[in-house]
């Protein structure tokens, strides 16, 4: 009973009446860790909860628990959300029993002058009777609307009855003052309330009569938000972002615009990763609301390559991808004397030096290594692919590996045909296909991915290594995509924050910009422009499985190397390598972020043998 009581507090307290899953993760992890022991002080405040900032008398725990369950039911059943979304006054949840009582009375419209004032008073160190937060709702039966005439004009709340105008004018003068019953807690709570200088002066010395009179109406004070602490602001920020996205989804752009204006101040009240993520998402939402679509995403590939290089240097994701894929390729090439790797996205070729070196040190000596790199057309007609190929050739020559390179320029991987690649038959040459963060771009047009998978099969590779982001950013519903993306990129930014670089580092800024551009694409673009159509490992598994590929398990060597690599990074204890049915996933704390998987064409595919007639045997 106690256990579930604690969880209810955690659930209701942290969610503040809204969906628990959208509360910021910091709150969840912070509270989750402490539900271990149950030793309580019999007479005084519950120690465990006091550590978290909740002051409840141990003797009242059962009562408060009951009320919280009631509150949860009430919030779940009716449309209490819009009520709360516009209610810009927050109670101090530190005094949990008072808080829960107030919340309940708001919903039930109970006359609450007989609030458990005895309880409140007994909690109050200063025992000032004037500090009761009492809400007398008896005068007003319609309690659903809160009209806020501040600069954030949120009158248009869908589905709620309109509030009569004349009463609104009267209510302007009456600022409903929310005082914390716990006098000792007043100072810090009100100190954070920077927006309300007038309300902060409502000290504990106000007379009870004034408060009673004030509480006669339901109208809101003219100033918004009593922010208790930045954790609450964080939750509020997330809710506002989600509400804005929902408004956009419902094509309610005016409302979305109003919400969007709220996000700015909220975001700047946060610190660190949360602020950066919120800023990027807010900008992306702005692009979507105001229909600004800069066409820069995939045009300037050298710029995005530079950003990606900084991202490569700052955090282990791309290195992890390269090392695990290389290990799989190395194991597949175990005895071959000629090997050929087809890289679907060559970029700067950072993956291949390590493979060339590993091949050079192979026990039987290095094979002949052919590399085919595929890249997008360059705007200034420089041959970026050849430059990369030349560098790799130099490296290969230095360490004594025979090397050949070919570059192919293609707008989309779907334009590629297996025949152009000049492949040799599998008896002569072992082929590997490698794609790091490239396949998801094809998901816009349904036929493309199937065509590419078919081409891959036609290449008859020994192994196909795929690295993709582990998130579903390709759902049909915008709000779901937005929600997923918010959580995904929050984890990514958190990991960047934990990477131990001093804040003004250029690397960090560029890495964040690299991720920020992905955010813009996921949120603000549609149709052919939206290329960041990430899908989860499970979805890719289904695709590959139905296209006729068998999974290849990445061995323990890959796992060990990956773990070792992560241990080298500052903040290395936050990164986690997981093995998932033969695939490796790299994540930050509990959230997997990228996944490496390996495939080969399903055995017994007779169609493959037909194609062998097309290839000529090379002259030896």
């Amino acid at each position, binding site marked *: 009973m106690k256990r579930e009581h604690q969880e209810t507090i955690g659930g209701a307290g942290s969610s503040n009446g809204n969906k628990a899953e959208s509360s910021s993760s910091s709150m969840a992890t912070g509270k989750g860790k402490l539900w271990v022991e149950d030793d309580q002080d019999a007479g005084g405040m519950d120690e465990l909860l006091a550590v978290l900032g909740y002051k409840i008398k141990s003797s009242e725990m059962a009562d408060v628990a009951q009320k919280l369950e009631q509150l949860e039911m009430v919030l779940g059943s009716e449309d209490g959300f819009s009520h709360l979304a516009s209610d810009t006054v927050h109670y101090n949840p530190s005094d949990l029993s008072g808080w829960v009582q107030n919340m309940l009375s708001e919903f039930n419209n109970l006359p609450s002058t007989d609030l458990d004032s005895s309880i409140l008073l007994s909690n109050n160190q200063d025992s000032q009777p004037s500090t009761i937060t009492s809400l007398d709702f008896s005068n007003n039966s319609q309690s659903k609307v809160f009209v806020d005439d501040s600069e954030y004009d949120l009158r248009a709340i869908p589905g709620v009855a309109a509030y009569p105008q004349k009463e609104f004018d009267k209510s302007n003068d009456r600022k409903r003052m929310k005082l914390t019953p716990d006098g000792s807690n007043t100072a810090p709570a009100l100190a954070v309330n920077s927006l309300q200088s007038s309300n902060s002066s409502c000290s504990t010395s106000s007379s009870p009569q004034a408060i009673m009179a004030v509480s006669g109406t339901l109208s809101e004070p003219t100033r918004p938000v009593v922010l208790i602490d930045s954790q609450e602001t964080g939750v509020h920020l997330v809710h506002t972002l989600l509400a804005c996205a929902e408004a956009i989804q419902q094509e309610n752009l005016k409302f979305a615009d109003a919400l969007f204006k709220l996000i700015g101040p909220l975001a700047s009240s946060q610190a660190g990763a949360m602020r950066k993520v919120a800023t990027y998402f807010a900008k992306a939402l702005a692009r979507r609301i105001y229909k600004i679509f800069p066409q820069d995403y995939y045009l300037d590939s050298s710029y995005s390559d*530079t950003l990606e290089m900084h991202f490569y240097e700052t955090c282990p994701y791309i290195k992890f991808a390269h090392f695990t894929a*290389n290990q799989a390729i190395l194991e597949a090439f175990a005895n071959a004397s000629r090997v050929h790797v087809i890289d679907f996205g060559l970029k700067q070729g950072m993956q291949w030096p390590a493979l060339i070196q590993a091949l050079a040190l192979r026990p039987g000596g290095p094979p002949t290594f052919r590399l085919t790199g595929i890249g997008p057309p360059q705007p200034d007609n420089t041959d970026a692919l050849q430059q990369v190929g030349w560098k790799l050739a130099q490296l290969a020559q230095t360490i004594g590996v025979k090397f050949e390179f070919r570059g192919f320029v293609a707008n989309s991987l779907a334009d590629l045909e297996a025949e152009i690649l000049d492949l040799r038959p599998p008896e002569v040459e072992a082929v590997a296909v490698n794609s790091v963060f490239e396949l998801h771009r094809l998901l816009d047009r349904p036929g493309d991915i199937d065509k590419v998978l078919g081409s891959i099969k036609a290449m008859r590779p020994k192994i196909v290594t795929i690295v993709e982001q582990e998130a579903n950013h390709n759902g049909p519903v915008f709000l779901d995509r937005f929600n997923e993306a918010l959580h995904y990129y929050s984890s990514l930014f958190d990991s960047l924050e934990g990477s131990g670089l001093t804040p003004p580092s250029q690397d960090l800024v560029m890495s964040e910009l690299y991720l920020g551009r992905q955010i813009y694409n996921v949120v603000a673009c549609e149709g052919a422009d939206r290329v960041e159509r990430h899908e989860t490992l499970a979805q890719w598994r289904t695709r590959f499985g139905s296209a006729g590929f068998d999974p290849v398990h990445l061995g323990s060597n890959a796992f060990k190397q990956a773990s070792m690599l992560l241990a080298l990074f500052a903040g290395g204890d936050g990164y986690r390598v997981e093995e998932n049915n033969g695939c490796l996933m790299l994540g930050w704390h509990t959230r997997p972020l990228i996944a490496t998987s390996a495939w080969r064409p399903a055995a017994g595919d007779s169609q493959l043998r037909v194609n062998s007639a097309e290839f000529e045997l090379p002259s030896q």
Partner: protein
Amino acid sequence: MEGNVKEKRPRFCVNDHVDILMEILKRLDGRSLCVSACVCRLWCTIARNDSLWEHLCFRHASPPPSSGVRPVIVALGGYKRLYMVCVRPVLSRLGRLRIAGDSDRDRRVWTRDGVQLSLSLFCVDYYERLGRLGGGGDASGGSSLMFLCKPVNV
């Protein structure tokens, strides 16, 4: 004691016996080896000898890497660079994580995977330097091994 008796004994100066000197220097740790390079010109020349650093790099590697490794490493920049850029930070970070309660142990045994990882990172470093020398690299001087240089708060 008579001064004459003493002068008859040959004075031993280690600088005359370079092979002994090398044997001694081979057993030093990295920092001491660098310090020893500041002693005098002879020691400086000897300390630059890559075989000393080779010994230092793979002293505690088990199994020791094959002889085929040497030409590759020499081509990519030599053992001294390998030690400074890759082996030292890798070992210190991995060692710190594994030998948590045993900080006074200097010896760190590392596996073939660790050796392989260091070599891969070394190769990537060489490749990046190629890019910068070729004029195609950006002047910011970023390096993919920068993460190894940053202090880790353990």
